């Protein structure tokens, strides 16, 4: 039974024949009557719909917040939940292996006398739309995701193995108890003994995420000057550590469910058990999203394909998708998204513009 007829019937607009059809259908099975009741009740009245569409949730929250009496004592840094402001991604035009030459003076930990040593670094730059895999002399394997930079010395120091990451990488670190492996990001240092984990630390994102698959890692915050702070956090397998760089970090519903502690800026927060595979699925060329809003998915699509995607129209950003993308073209991905929600899109050079539909075209 077509919804159209049922709605007409509910509103009293069916002709005698249609009326009879509906009533026969209603009588033919109890589940039909049940279904009908559900539709009738939830369509509601004009007044209901109009009131609903006038609802201003933010305004009402402001009113609630003003009236909420706070229990004194707890002092939390305030996180302002802004709607996600999508930064314009600059497409890297640099090729893969660029050797950056810089000299640094290193002080070795073991010796009491500081010994200056000149160290040379390699910088691996992976542009958007690509990923890279490298193997180090000690047996460590690193997968580097699109739009990322990894800096490492041509030769590891005596006391430790250090790399610097801007972006996302998955590490399979070879065990070496005497030489802990350090991943340095802008605000967090990760110490590893031998293990598999994923680090997500894009400079244009407002949080840093570390997901542990196997082994054990510990994390430490570092100050702007690069000095590690005292507190050390330990991460167990299938958990995630999240660090919010600043107040207006965007928080997805998934993240909210994963972190039990209060959401505070500039503090390392450990999550509940998570599906660690999702964090590193990009290695196999897969992008997985579960009931995520378009506005959250787009930046990942942009990096994955190396394109710029713009959306015109607020409502589209709120639509949710669940899916796995594996080795299909950007055009096929866009078409797949269109199946759930119709929209128009335009491809210009390296940009894709998605617009809400003005007129439906019926090809099928």
């Amino acid at each position, binding site marked *: 039974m*077509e*919804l*159209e007829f049922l*709605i007409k019937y509910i*509103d009293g*607009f069916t002709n005698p024949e249609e009326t009879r059809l509906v009533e026969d259908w209603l009588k033919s099975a109890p*589940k039909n009557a*049940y*279904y009908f009741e*559900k*539709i009738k*009740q*939830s*369509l*509601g009245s*004009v*007044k*209901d*719909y*109009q*009131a*609903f*569409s006038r*609802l201003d*949730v*933010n305004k*009402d*929250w402001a009113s*609630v*917040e003003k*009236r*909420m*009496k*706070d*229990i004194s004592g*707890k002092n*939390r840094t*305030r*996180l302002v*939940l802004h709607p996600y402001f999508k930064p314009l991604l600059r497409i890297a035009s640099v090729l893969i292996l660029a050797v950056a030459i810089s000299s640094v003076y290193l002080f070795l930990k073991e010796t009491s006398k500081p010994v200056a040593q000149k160290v040379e670094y390699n910088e691996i730059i992976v542009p958007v739309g690509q990923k890279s895999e490298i193997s180090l002399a000690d047996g460590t394997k690193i997968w580097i995701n699109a739009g990322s930079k990894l800096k490492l010395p041509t030769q590891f120091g005596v006391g430790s193995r250090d790399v610097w990451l801007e972006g996302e990488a998955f590490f399979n670190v070879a065990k070496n108890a005497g030489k802990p492996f350090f991943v340095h990001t802008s605000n967090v240092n990760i110490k590893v003994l031998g293990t598999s984990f994923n680090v997500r630390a894009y400079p244009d994102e407002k949080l840093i995420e570390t997901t542990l698959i196997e082994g054990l890692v510990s994390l430490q915050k570092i100050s702007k000057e690069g000095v590690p702070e005292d507190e050390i956090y330990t991460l167990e397998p299938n958990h995630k550590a999240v660090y919010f760089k600043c107040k207006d970090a965007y*928080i997805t*519903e998934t993240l*909210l*469910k994963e972190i*039990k*502690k*209060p*959401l505070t800026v500039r503090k390392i927060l450990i999550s509940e058990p998570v599906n660690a595979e999702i964090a590193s699925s990009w290695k196999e060329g897969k992008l997985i999203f579960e009931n995520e809003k378009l506005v959250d998915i787009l930046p990942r699509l942009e990096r994955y394909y190396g394109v710029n995607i713009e959306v015109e129209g607020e*409502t*589209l950003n*709120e*639509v949710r998708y669940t899916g796995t993308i594996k080795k299909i073209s950007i055009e096929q991905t866009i078409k797949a998204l269109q199946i759930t*929600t*119709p929209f128009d899109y335009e491809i210009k050079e390296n940009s894709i513009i998605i617009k*809400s*539909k*003005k*007129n*439906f075209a*019926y090809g099928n």
Partner: protein
Amino acid sequence: MANDSFIWDKLKIGDKQSFELIFKIYYPQLCLFANRYTRDFDMAREVVQEIFIYLWENRDNLQEKKSVKSYLYAAIRHNSVRRVNGQIKKRLEIEDIPEENIKADFLDEIEYAELQEIIYTTIESFPPQCKKIFSLSRFESATYAQIALKLNLSQKTVEAQMTKALKIIQKKFDEYLLVLSVLFFI
């Protein structure tokens, strides 16, 4: 109802930022639910807001892990009815609900409200012209001919848009009911 124990956790530790997010996620649906009892949307909004304030201020009294959502539904229903019956004069005074009211004997009403929110949000997400056509048809009882005339479109276009809109709504219905039937063995 899905596992919402994380809400209880956030409340217990007084995480205001998470509370804000929780409010924003559930508020429209809860207003629609309250509205089923108050039949006055503004009154419904007031009741829901007062319940959230009450919940926040009394969060230390929350005992073992309960479903906060169930509590919200029960408390909103209880206090909506009180409000409508004039048991509260001016400002809404929230009464905590007796233990037995947390049984969802009004499960149907909850489902209608959830479905209503899904449908209304779906309509809100239609492209502007489709939304206009659908609203005129459903809420102002205009015929396709009248709509075509008013919006300066062909009747075929109007029909096609309506068909598409109804298909989408039908899909949402069926998805929701499928979930329900799995949960409750209908």
